[in-house]
């Protein structure tokens, strides 16, 4: 049952048209957001200038969760309705999501260093992100280990759904574990009390990252569609317009 919108060929053309727009919007949002974050938002009375890394850390953390949800959702669609495009979307989400998770961990580490003098702290968010990173890597490793693309996509979809159900449980458990074990002197890496002028750059950066995700996802999906459909005539025409 091939819906017009679910056809790889149609999507390839559509994605090609959308990508430049998405890229432009991403750049605009990123530039504006960073400007507001680095220059306009006031220095925090407690943390000084170093807190500004929050404007990358927090949106990156949100993206890492958001992308996993999308990945699981696309996986569900692929499993239930056998939509190839959903499979392609899901498998391309994973590296982007994993990158955002790594970005969260790296910025969290950079944030922690000036505050406590250590490059790592087992606080609730960082620990949850670390486990999320392992979940992403597991997903990618599973897909890479299966040769048949259809089996790979369906197995990965099941894994993503199991993961998505477990993520709230993991979050909750890690929160609890953290409150029990943290020594009194170490405070949580929390955002300082949000000043309204901090909210704008935070939201802008989140939107920028979201559009970045869509841009990169569109580009990656186009590549994968070309590879998967390489036996068809329309791909042959795309690759060699003269023939």
């Amino acid at each position, binding site marked *: 049952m091939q819906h017009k919108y679910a056809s790889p060929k149609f999507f390839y053309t559509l994605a090609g048209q959308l990508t430049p727009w998405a890229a432009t919007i991403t750049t605009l949002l990123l530039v504006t957001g960073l400007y507001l974050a680095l220059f306009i938002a006031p220095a925090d009375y407690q943390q000084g200038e170093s807190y500004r890394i929050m404007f990358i850390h927090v949106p990156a953390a949100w993206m890492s969760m958001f992308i996993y949800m999308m990945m699981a959702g696309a996986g569900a669609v692929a*499993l239930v309705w056998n939509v190839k495009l959903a499979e392609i979307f899901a498998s391309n989400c994973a590296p982007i999501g994993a990158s955002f998770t790594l970005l969260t961990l790296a910025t969290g580490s950079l944030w922690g260093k000036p505050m406590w003098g250590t490059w790592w702290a087992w606080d609730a968010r960082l620990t949850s992100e670390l*486990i999320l990173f*392992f*979940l992403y*890597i*597991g997903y990618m*490793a*599973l897909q890479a*280990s*299966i040769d*048949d693309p*259809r*089996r790979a996509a*369906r*197995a990965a979809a*099941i*894994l993503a*759904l*199991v*993961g998505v*159900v*477990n993520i709230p*449980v*993991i979050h*909750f*458990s*890690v929160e*609890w*574990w953290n409150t*029990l074990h943290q020594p009194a002197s170490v405070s949580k890496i929390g955002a300082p009390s949000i000043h309204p002028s901090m909210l704008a750059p935070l939201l802008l950066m989140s939107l920028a990252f979201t559009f970045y995700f869509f841009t990169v996802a569109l580009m990656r999906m186009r590549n994968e569609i070309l590879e998967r459909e390489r036996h068809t005539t329309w791909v042959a025409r795309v690759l060699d317009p003269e023939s």
Partner: protein
Amino acid sequence: MPKLLKAVGCLLHRDLTVALRRSTDILTPLIFFVIVVSLFPLGLGPEPSVLKTIAPGVIWVAALLATMLSLNRLFANDHADGTLEQMALSPHPLTVLVLTKVTAHWMLTGLPLVLISPLLAIQMFLPESAIGTLTLSLLLGTPVLSLLGAVGAALTLGLRGSGVLLSLLVLPLYTPVLIFGAGAVAGVIADIDVEAHFSLLGAFLALALAFAPWAAAAALRVSLD
């Protein structure tokens, strides 16, 4: 229903018989469990106060790893000789058959770990008041490990490097059970009320029983495709 129960009993009996005749499969994870726990005093020194503090975490992590090691015998052997296919072609719901297999697996893998844990607790100078908690936490936790592990084993069926891949997939999912299982034992030592821990472990078991066999059955069908 009586037909299904008979099939379940039959499958349970078959799996237990086969496993008991391949006794090395059962003993290896158990010995591994004992060896891993014994390595810690060798690595950290035999000081009782140190060992006592790390005991809950160490015993629990060792139980996790031993379960991981044993998971390959859940489906891989049946897959190789064709009996897994036959099971997938049975007129009975695959979800129920998978649950039966996991039960047989746990009886010969998880349960021995639970039963030997008091000995390891003594080796690690765990106070006697905590030994009961340790055993009970493992009793509730190891079935969850087997159930979640079954999903991983089903997904990685027949893949090269499936042992390590399976660990990669399943260990992150084990973290909540580890946190509350080891936390319960540590809590008893610190004289904290651990009722919440056991309620949560029980909840995890209930959730795993409800969903894991179904996910594992779906994964098996994907892997047999």
